[in-house]
């Protein structure tokens, strides 16, 4: 149950967009159409579910203080935490590359629709953010995977909801200076207000 709760918490309560403001750049830039938002959302869920557990393994068996004892007992005092950023980002960049190649091979149709979004995911803050939060939260590997999936799915829901609203927004009269980014920020604020309703729920 705990695993399931972690995923739910990631989706609704600790939503990447509304609670941590992560992945805002692509959230705002790729939410003009539901179709493309769907593609990006799926890719984010996919990459997050893979990278968080991989980074967990890295943190647990390489980076953490005393993590290298599985090679030799004398490595006990080695603390490689300062390499965390560079290792995590390298894992993410290569995982994204890997996922891109796998999808291209297995499903050219999906690859075609995700196309340009896949490489962009490497610099999506939500991906690196979840890995960093995962370290802070002290999960085990199953919980970490579930957390990765949950936060990815939260992003997916948020971006699709915003894209749907923005598609409708095309037909309304928005003041010229507020068009585009401005009104989107205000809408995101209102959506955040709605998501606040989940905060009281203890899981």
């Amino acid at each position: 149950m705990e695993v399931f709760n972690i995923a739910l918490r990631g989706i609704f309560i600790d939503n990447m967009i509304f609670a941590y403001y992560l992945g805002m750049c692509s959230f705002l830039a790729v939410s003009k159409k539901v179709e493309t938002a769907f593609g990006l959302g799926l890719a984010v869920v996919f990459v997050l579910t893979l990278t968080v557990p991989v980074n967990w393994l890295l943190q647990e068996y390489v980076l953490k203080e005393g993590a290298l004892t599985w090679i030799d007992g004398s490595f006990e005092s080695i603390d490689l935490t300062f390499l965390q950023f560079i290792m995590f980002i390298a894992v993410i960049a290569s995982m994204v590359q890997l996922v891109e190649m796998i999808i291209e091979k297995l499903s050219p149709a999906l690859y075609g629709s995700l196309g340009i979004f896949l490489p962009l995911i490497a610099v999506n803050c939500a991906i690196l953010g979840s890995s960093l939060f995962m370290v802070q939260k002290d999960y085990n590997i199953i919980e970490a995977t579930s957390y990765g999936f949950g936060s990815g799915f939260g992003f997916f829901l948020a971006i699709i909801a915003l894209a749907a609203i923005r598609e409708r927004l095309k037909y309304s009269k928005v003041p010229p200076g507020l068009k585009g980014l401005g009104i989107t920020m205000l809408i995101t604020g209102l959506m955040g207000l709605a998501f606040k309703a989940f905060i009281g729920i203890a899981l």
Partner: protein
Amino acid sequence: MSAEATVVEKELKVEKKPAEAFLSKRRKNIVTDPLSDDNPITIQVLGICSALAVTVKLEPTLVMSIAVVFVIVFANLIISLMRNLIPGRIRIIVQLAVVATLVTLVSEFLKAYSYDMYKVLGAYVGLIITNCIVMGRLEAFAMANKPYDSILDGLGSGFGYAWIILTVAFFRELLGSGSIFDFKIFEAIGWTTFPTNGLMVDSIGAFVVLGILIWIQRSKSGYVEH
């Protein structure tokens, strides 16, 4: 051989031009454009994540601005120096490695000299790596321009980012906590019953303040998105 020869020729041609003034008009524009007409946050829609996340109070925002300016300037400089050596296909990873190294420096520096601030900023220091402004400037400017121009461009974008997030933080701290730099301004002028607004401390306040700021800034600069 012929390719090499043309490269040498090109370099010679460049050298023949009279040296550009240290702060010529073009270079001034590189610095001043991102401050308003081409602002990274309000016009180019980059670097929003950290603009929202750290702006609850002015002090962490100031630290964050300094960190970002530092990272952008030096990443621009380093990438610009290496721009002819980086193979096109792996440039993203090279850029990420440079940025990650600089961010690690900032993070370790904060941990050593200002541990409280390091705790407050938490994961968001690490997230400078994926700050789209940094990657955007590397990709769009440093990969194609000389080191000195790249430094100027980094300064411009950094300050363009800094003044926006400082403005957002000013309003959020003023209305959300009733203080400026942790100085209780309303209590100081005798208004002890000032109603602080919880929404301003929350993410919603950040979205709304930034949305309104974008509205004002775009109305002034006349930029309209289609």
